[in-house]
């Protein structure tokens, strides 16, 4: 009979956390920026169909780094949660806070109970009527949840990218300026090479989608063509 070695809970948690961190650090960065026009979500992602950014509900979007199968299942669970809630109560009653807390609980449960923790980091963003009402939540692999302000950077070189974004962030950025700022941030992560539009995944949560596009669904994915135009506007 094999004897189990004693492993202290501290050591066990530390090992799991290190394992998850290593998985996430391999991923490319994702940036979520709150600005005057709404919230811009920018990811470095060469695949045009395997998304890291997704729509959850009218005013809520999702962004993730890490293992695709893991965050994709979390995204789908989030869409289901939001649609069930909106269907059984009202569309108004679906909030990023509620969704983020469900994510935090699921991630926490997986971290402690499952064989291996999820190697993902998530952002849940909700665009409000004004910039002060925007909500950005960051969720990490162990289920911790943080209420962030102005912007979130996740992924491999988050600290370095974060520095670049912090330097350029202003309250009154337009979408174009916010996306350019995010791309500048992503480039610092990449040994100073240029990022073509094809390698980017960009989406926005439009603050005034009702008046601009006549829909309450604020989420809009930008095509490569749109991104090329935005990046070319560079002053």
């Amino acid at each position, binding site marked *: 009979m094999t004897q189990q070695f004693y492993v202290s809970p501290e050591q066990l948690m530390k090992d799991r956390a290190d394992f998850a961190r290593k998985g996430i650090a391999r991923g490319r960065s994702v940036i979520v920026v709150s600005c005057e026009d709404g919230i811009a979500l920018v990811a470095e992602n060469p695949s045009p*169909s395997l998304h890291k950014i997704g729509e*959850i509900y009218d005013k809520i979007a999702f962004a993730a780094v890490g293992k695709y199968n893991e965050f994709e299942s979390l995204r*789908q669970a989030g*869409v*289901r949660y939001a*649609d069930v809630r909106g*269907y059984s109560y009202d569309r108004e009653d679906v909030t990023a806070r509620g969704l983020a807390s469900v994510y935090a609980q699921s991630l926490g449960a997986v971290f402690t109970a499952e064989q291996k923790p999820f190697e993902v980091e998530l952002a849940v963003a909700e665009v409000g009527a004004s910039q002060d009402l925007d909500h950005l939540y960051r969720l990490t692999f162990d289920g911790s949840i943080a209420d962030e302000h102005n912007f979130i950077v996740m992924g491999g070189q988050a600290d370095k990218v974060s520095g670049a974004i912090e330097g350029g962030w202003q309250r009154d950025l337009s979408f174009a300026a916010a996306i350019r700022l995010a791309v500048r941030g992503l480039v610092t992560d990449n040994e100073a090479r240029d990022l073509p539009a094809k390698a980017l995944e960009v989406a926005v949560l439009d603050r005034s989608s009702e008046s601009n596009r*006549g829909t309450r*669904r604020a989420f809009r994915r930008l095509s490569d063509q749109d991104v090329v135009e935005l990046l070319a506007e560079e002053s």
Partner: protein
Amino acid sequence: MQETTANKVAAHATSSFTEHLQRDRPELLPQYAPFAAGTSTGQPLAVPHATTIVAMTYAGGIVMAGDRRATMGNIIASRHIEKVFPADQYSVVGIAGTAGIAIDLTRLFQVELEHYEKIEGTPLSLEGKANRLGAMIRGNLPMALQGLAVVPLFAGFDSAAGAGRLFSYDVTGGRYEEQEHHAVGSGSMFARGALKKLWRPNLPEDEAIAVAVESLYDAADDDSATGGPDPVRQLWPVVYAVNRAGARRVSERDLAAMAGNIIESRTAARREA
């Protein structure tokens, strides 16, 4: 072991909101247990009924319009009810029949389409949407047999075909593609008669909207359950136009002007029938 896990994951992967509810939250689905045999009083249940919906193709898309009346036997249950809804960005659904069930069903259908689009990252095809609605109507068959039928009219812009298309249904969920124009509900006979005379191929959008309003006027003229334009309360039909750019609700102001023209020309003609 591998096999069963894979099978389990595949079986659980659904893009359908209704399927998800059936599996995990069945209590949220609209469900009306059929009455036990013998409890039926022989009289239909006194609940509001929605009446006439018309739809037609025009150059570049489709128009759908519904009057604003719901009736309960000989009583007008509502003068303000809206019976035409955007199903998603490129399609609209109009409902005739038991109003409560129909509105529930429409709400579920709207979530169903949006849910699929979000999970899959791409919208359903127009045929796919039409089939989904058919399945939902079929689910209501037991109620239809109790006299609580829902009969929708579905229309949308088919971006693959580059044209507007129109689908009607029966209570068993049977789905029929209609050409040119169609109407459902209690006043549909009269509306269809009017459409036959007023509709012509490749109408411009504004004329198609005027034709829709006029056919509802004719339906209201002969069917007591259909409401005509109401200048006293400023109530006009609900009209949606769907084209390549998406579904758009026609403004109250335009409808007031069109309804005004129709009333004026009919008054001037001084005809009895």
